């Protein structure tokens, strides 16, 4: 199953962050590459959603829905937003 891109998590990110996020710039903490969230590499299959850097494949974000809450890991990002 081919991975998708950050457009596929537009709804999820809007739910988590309270705003449209696909056009926001994400900067990778591992390699420094940056680009719109829409262009990240997204693995959507449960158990959870894993978002990776298109340049180096490092994990940028993980979202896991556990009961009625999201567990969100953003440690792979150096920045999310205007740089």
């Amino acid at each position: 199953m081919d991975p998708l891109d950050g457009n596929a998590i537009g709804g999820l990110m809007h739910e988590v962050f309270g705003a449209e996020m696909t056009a926001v710039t994400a900067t990778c903490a591992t390699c420094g590459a940056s680009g719109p969230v829409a262009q990240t590499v997204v693995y959507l299959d449960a158990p959870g959603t894993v978002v990776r850097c298109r340049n180096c494949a490092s994990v940028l974000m993980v979202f896991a829905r556990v009961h009625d809450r999201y567990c969100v890991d953003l440690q792979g990002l150096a920045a999310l937003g205007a740089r």
Partner: protein
Amino acid sequence: MSHISRGFHGRRRTPAGQEGRVPPGQYVTEDFPVLSAGPTPHTPTDSWTFSITQGGGTKKSWTWAEMQALPQEDVTADIHCVTRWSKLDTHWQAVSIDTLLEQVEHDAAYVLAFSDGGYTTNLPLEDVTGGRAWLAYGYDGGPLPAEHGGPARLLVPHLYFWKSAKWVRGLQLLDTDEPGFWETYGYHMYGDPWKEQRYAGD
């Protein structure tokens, strides 16, 4: 929850007579879905090793040839994924984890399986011994395909299949139970499908 979609059933096919084999909340599939958290590793067998580690060090390591020289087993098992699909009577060729752990002296109570690509998952030692777990390198009569975890994966059919780490390269011996990748994000530390232990607290 107020809204029910008229006429929507999802995939619900439990073949007649197999109800006892399907844990609660699961459906039976004829497919073998591929679920991934990252790109598929492609590790050549001539550079592949499997290690038992503890602390920072390696207690024992096998090359592919050394692993293949160990006693082999044909395993038939039902497997259950936390995403609700179950696949019955899957056929594997494998080495028992007992065979590997017997060659190492230790008193660990837990293991953390680690894989190419960085995936980890934790299990109690007693759940990977006693004939309950394997290092599987063959599936359905052929080599295990990379998309399903080849060249070799962990196979622990009595727990949810996220514990059967794909692309496994070893087991780290631990004194205490430490959460692996999905466990860190709230998935159950143990994962018994018959008790529907999908998430922490279940």
